[in-house]
């Protein structure tokens, strides 16, 4: 079989769509003005910039003045969590043990500053329990941050139930929706969300730009001080081409939902069904409550990086939950939290599907994988009976 180039790492990043690139290009050349300038060069860009805000808000079903443009998911998370913490001064925060490091490590740092944090455990599918969440709420709890869907195993959390509980107890609710926005339909106004983080490069927009949704009336302290841009919450001259690209990409992605999500889920299921047919391959994450593009499986008795490298030699791009490349032998915190033993966790591979993947890509991967797995298993000293 001829080598193909198959990109299945859309959870890491996605290619910028042609329409998005074209929308951005004028803002690198003739439309170079600073949107804060009073002259025509500035005013023209301000107009386009605010139109991008309007489109972004409309795509999310929120008001334009609830959107703050940032440099991406990490910054949005930091502004929301640290900003809320700074405003409250002290108190208790609830999050989950499988958050992205852009939330988890912020919480750890806030602990050092005197805040107390509960890291909710998850079940074997990666779901938090509503009972455990509600019983962890204390009088001093002011914030809960739970990701909309997990980046590694794709598990989608019951965001609307979390929102209802947060509302009942009058605590702020933040969700890191970086993996969900543009991939699944989302109705922010029905979810009782106070904050939502998103990142453009996960939905075929450019890298280095994202947004924070902050519900009108919710007050947080800014982390930065400067020229007052983004209503003083994120000062600094705007990333105009980036924001134009974000709004275009979001408009296109949301416009294609829910059909696109259904198509992706079909491809995902085809890949999962093919993979679990191989001996000693287990699906990680929830069988149904998962991102439409996420496939995460463990190949027992072999190590994830060697699978990735083999896939790469066949032109297939995927990613691994194995931490071998990070210099530590510990598997990812997510795979540990769902209770995988070290060996199963080390054999985990994530295929994240997206725009541009077709059935033939799935079939190509399914054709290639058995020989890769056989070869590595024959090389491995670990066998079924020794585990």
């Amino acid at each position, binding site marked *: 079989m001829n080598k193909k180039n198959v990109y299945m790492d859309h959870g890491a990043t996605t290619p910028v769509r042609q329409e998005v690139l074209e929308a951005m290009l004028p803002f690198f050349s003739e439309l170079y003005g600073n949107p804060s300038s009073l002259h025509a060069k500035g005013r023209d860009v301000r107009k386009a910039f605010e139109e991008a805000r309007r489109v972004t808000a409309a795509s999310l079903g929120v008001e334009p003045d609830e959107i703050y443009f940032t440099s991406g998911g990490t910054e949005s998370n930091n502004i929301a969590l640290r900003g809320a913490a700074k405003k409250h001064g002290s108190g208790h925060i609830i999050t989950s043990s499988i958050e992205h490091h852009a939330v988890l490590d912020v919480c750890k740092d806030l602990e050092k500053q005197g805040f107390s944090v509960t890291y909710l455990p998850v079940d074997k599918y990666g779901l938090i329990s509503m009972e455990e969440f509600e019983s962890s709420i204390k009088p001093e709890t002011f914030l809960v941050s739970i990701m909309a869907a997990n980046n590694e195993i794709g598990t989608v959390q019951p965001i609307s139930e979390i929102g209802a509980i947060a509302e009942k107890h009058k605590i702020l609710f933040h969700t890191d929706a970086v993996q969900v926005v543009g991939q699944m339909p989302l109705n922010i106004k029905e979810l009782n969300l106070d904050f939502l983080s998103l990142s453009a490069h996960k939905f075929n927009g450019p890298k280095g730009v994202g947004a924070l949704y902050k519900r009108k009336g919710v007050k947080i302290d800014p982390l930065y001080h400067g020229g007052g841009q983004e209503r003083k919450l994120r000062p600094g001259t705007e990333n105009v081409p980036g924001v134009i690209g974000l709004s275009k990409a979001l408009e296109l992605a949301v416009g294609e939902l829910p059909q696109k999500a259904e198509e992706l889920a079909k491809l995902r299921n085809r890949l999962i069904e093919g993979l679990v047919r191989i001996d000693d391959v287990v699906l990680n994450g929830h069988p149904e409550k998962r991102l439409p593009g996420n496939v995460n499986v463990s190949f027992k*008795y*072999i*190590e994830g*990086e*060697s699978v990735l*490298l083999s896939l790469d*030699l066949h032109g297939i791009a995927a990613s691994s939950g*194995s931490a*071998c*490349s*990070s*210099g530590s*032998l*510990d598997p990812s915190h997510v795979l540990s939290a769902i209770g995988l*033993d*070290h*060996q199963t966790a*080390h054999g985990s591979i994530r295929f994240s599907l997206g725009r541009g993947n077709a059935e033939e890509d799935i079939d190509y991967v399914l054709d290639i994988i058995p020989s890769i797995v056989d070869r590595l298993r*024959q*090389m*491995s*000293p*670990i066998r079924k009976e*020794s*585990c």
Partner: protein
Amino acid sequence: MYNEKVVEHFNNPRNVGELPDADAIGENGSFKCGDTMKIYLKVKDGIIEDVRFQTYGCGAAIASSSMLTEIIKGKTIDEALQVSNQDVADELGGLPPLKLHCSNLAADALHDAIANYKKKQGSVVKD
């Protein structure tokens, strides 16, 4: 991330498998938490006549296992004992710094096999 030689050894590893009539077997690593290598030696007149390996691990671990078997085949036991982890990495043209712990595997498993071999020789003499 890896140079061509490492990828070539990963893709076409030399001396993979078991030796049913091995004179010594060595192991390094832990099944529980990470990379593991098992090495089989066939020794005749103090010379490593044949060698096989099995490795569970990343690309660097498999490539360094393969490289080690090439280095030691035909060497005397004492010469093989001098082969270090660094020698294996050097012979591969270098490994990423974070991966150096993987290459430790191969020479350590070899040294374990040689220790087992010497133990066995000692007990044979005593008998």
